[in-house]
């Protein structure tokens, strides 16, 4: 009896062709767009030399040496262009250089905007000012040790020992793909919603017809949920496979566990839809609109549209991330990438399981009703 119901449930889901088509096409299209849009952003932020224009107004050997040191190191900080004041100004305004270093008595800095690169230039020029100060102090106290002092001051040091956990793929833009998978998962609510509509007498004729058959409600309800979960899992697997192997998105972490988490998240989506479908007397269309709206808000809060929202929420309202099921789903992928131990991944997976169980249980509780006030 159960197998019969499950078989037909699967047949039914698979035959809703245009819907299935879209459910599969959706991550493919958006994933491709994401890949095109974000594919090369992260590398742009990777450290590079800063282009500057240098203008000499008087002879300053110390300053020349200082700049030479910065632009001829093994990993140079500056890419210098020596030119005259007029041309330098033009280069700056055209955005070809980040700043103008004018060598006179000292080094003066001119920039065209605020931001991190101009700030670094300021930092470099401040370092020159520091040299001046230290030299002045040295000459005042112990001129003989000037060489030693300067050597100490410009010594190459490696003071920072990196102790941070290393992500397999530090590219922060990969989280858009995490959220894309999470969105496909939460869209499983559409199939879940159908399960509760098709099995309740007051929601559909089909539900009424099934309710008066000789099969207990528990059986076709379970079959329906399982069938939806299977269908959703298939689309999750396809989605991850496409992103990983066709678009070559590097998710980081164990791929097997990623598939597992994706499948589980698909079931969470189905359970979510089932839950929404089981509350209240509203008809299918209304519930569907609610489910989609809620899903999109949750996706937004998880960073599907703006990647930094999760970080902002972590500071301003950390409970949102902790309770938002979509954030939990995308976090589970992130944890696989970020942490080599599975402690946090497991906690996210447990949270997903709890959500799935609670949504299903509440859904069953509400649909369990055998008789209806009105149909």
């Amino acid at each position, binding site marked *: *009896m159960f197998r*019969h*119901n499950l078989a*037909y449930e699967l*047949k*039914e889901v698979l*035959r*809703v062709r245009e819907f299935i088509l879209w459910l599969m096409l959706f991550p493919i299209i958006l994933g491709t767009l994401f890949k095109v849009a974000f594919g090369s952003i992260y590398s742009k932020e990777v450290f590079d030399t800063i282009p500057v224009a240098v203008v000499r107004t008087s002879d300053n050997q110390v300053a020349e040496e200082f700049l030479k040191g910065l632009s001829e190191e093994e990993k140079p900080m500056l890419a210098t262009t020596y030119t005259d004041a007029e041309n330098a100004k033009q280069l700056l305004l055209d955005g070809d250089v980040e700043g103008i270093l004018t060598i006179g008595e000292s080094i003066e800095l001119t920039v065209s905007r605020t931001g991190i690169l101009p700030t670094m230039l300021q930092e470099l020029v401040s370092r020159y000012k520091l040299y001046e100060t230290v030299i002045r102090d040295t000459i005042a106290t112990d001129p003989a040790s000037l060489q030693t002092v300067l050597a100490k001051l410009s010594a190459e040091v490696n003071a920072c020992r990196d102790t941070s956990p290393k992500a397999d793929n530090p590219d922060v833009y990969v989280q858009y793909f995490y959220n894309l998978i999470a969105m496909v998962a939460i869209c499983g609510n559409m199939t879940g919603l159908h399960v509760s509509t098709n099995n309740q*007498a007051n929601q559909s*004729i*089909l539900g*009424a*017809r*099934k*309710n*008066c*058959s*000789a*099969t*207990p409600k528990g059986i*076709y309800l379970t079959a329906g949920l399982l069938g939806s979960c299977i269908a959703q899992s298939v689309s999750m697997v396809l989605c991850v496979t496409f992103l990983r192997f066709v678009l070559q998105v590097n998710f980081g972490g164990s791929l097997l566990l990623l598939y597992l988490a994706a499948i589980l998240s698909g079931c969470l989506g189905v359970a979510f839809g089932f839950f929404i479908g089981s509350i209240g007397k509203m008809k299918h269309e209304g519930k569907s609109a609610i489910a989609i709206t809620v899903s999109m808000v949750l996706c937004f809060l998880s960073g599907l549209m703006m990647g930094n929202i999760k970080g902002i929420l972590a500071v301003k309202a950390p409970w949102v991330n902790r309770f938002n099921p979509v954030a939990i789903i995308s976090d589970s992928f992130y944890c696989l990438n970020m942490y080599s131990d599975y402690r946090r991944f497991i906690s996210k997976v447990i949270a997903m399981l709890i959500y799935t169980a609670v949504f299903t249980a509440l859904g069953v509780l509400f649909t369990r009703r*055998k*008789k*209806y*006030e*009105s*149909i």
Partner: protein
Amino acid sequence: MKPTVVKIDNLVKRYGELVALDHFSLEIKEGEIFGLLGPNGSGKTTTINCLLSLLSFDKGEIEVFGKEMTPTSYDIKREIGVIMQNVAVMDELTVRENIDYFCGLYIADKEKRKACVEEAIKFVGLEDFVNFRPKKLSGGLLRRLNIACGIAHKPKLIILDEPTVAVDPQSRNRILEGIQELNREGATVIYTSHYMEEVEQICTRIAIMDKGRKIAEGTKDELKGMIRNTESVSIEILELPEDVREKIAHLPHVYETDYDGTKLTVRCSGGRHNLIRILAVLQEAELGFGRVYSELPTLNDVFLEITGTALRDSKE
């Protein structure tokens, strides 16, 4: 005496202020084709839904096959076949798959089910359409599929809720014949409709419903026996002086006359030669007349006499 299949006792169902079923009682014996006749909104479908334990009700008792009917009475449900008023099939499944699906909700055994499904397809005459999706079927064929889904598991009690709404005459006749055949094979049938001709044609016993109450019950002859009317005579006549009409009204057995300027209707109760007597009066007055009909009472007359409104008028 045949055993009772369905027993409804003092059923009351309210939707807020509206009383949908008002102390409704019913008893249906094995082997009957029981007709529930009434205008739309009279409570037929509500009765069926209560009987199927889909709806909760405020008062009363329902027994099927001598046992109390509850939502979990699966042994009872196994013996019931339901054909709902609205077609309840899955658009994504083919004709055969739909029948197999619904049949599978009753019969677990695959071999047995296969035979049942084939039989049902043949029974409703959908052999040429087994691989069609419901959306490709015409209204009549869709109704037949709906019926096949309800009867494939060979139930002992078949409930049909207005199965012929919006069906072409050909399909309708096929459906009605089919119901009679199922009945001959041993099934008890509950049939609801607002088409009295259908009910008259196939039902062995009939209950007439109006506003949630049962207003009459019996075989069609018993029902007709409840009213005075035994014969209605209609005469097309363009001119009818008042004195002639008076004369007709005072003939024996005549209890009511109606004249609308073109047609005279005379209702009689009992008597054998009513038509001849009426025509004799007209001849005597040397009045010309057109066509003449004499009709036996219909269920519409029964409804009309009991409720004061015609069944047809209260449609929709």
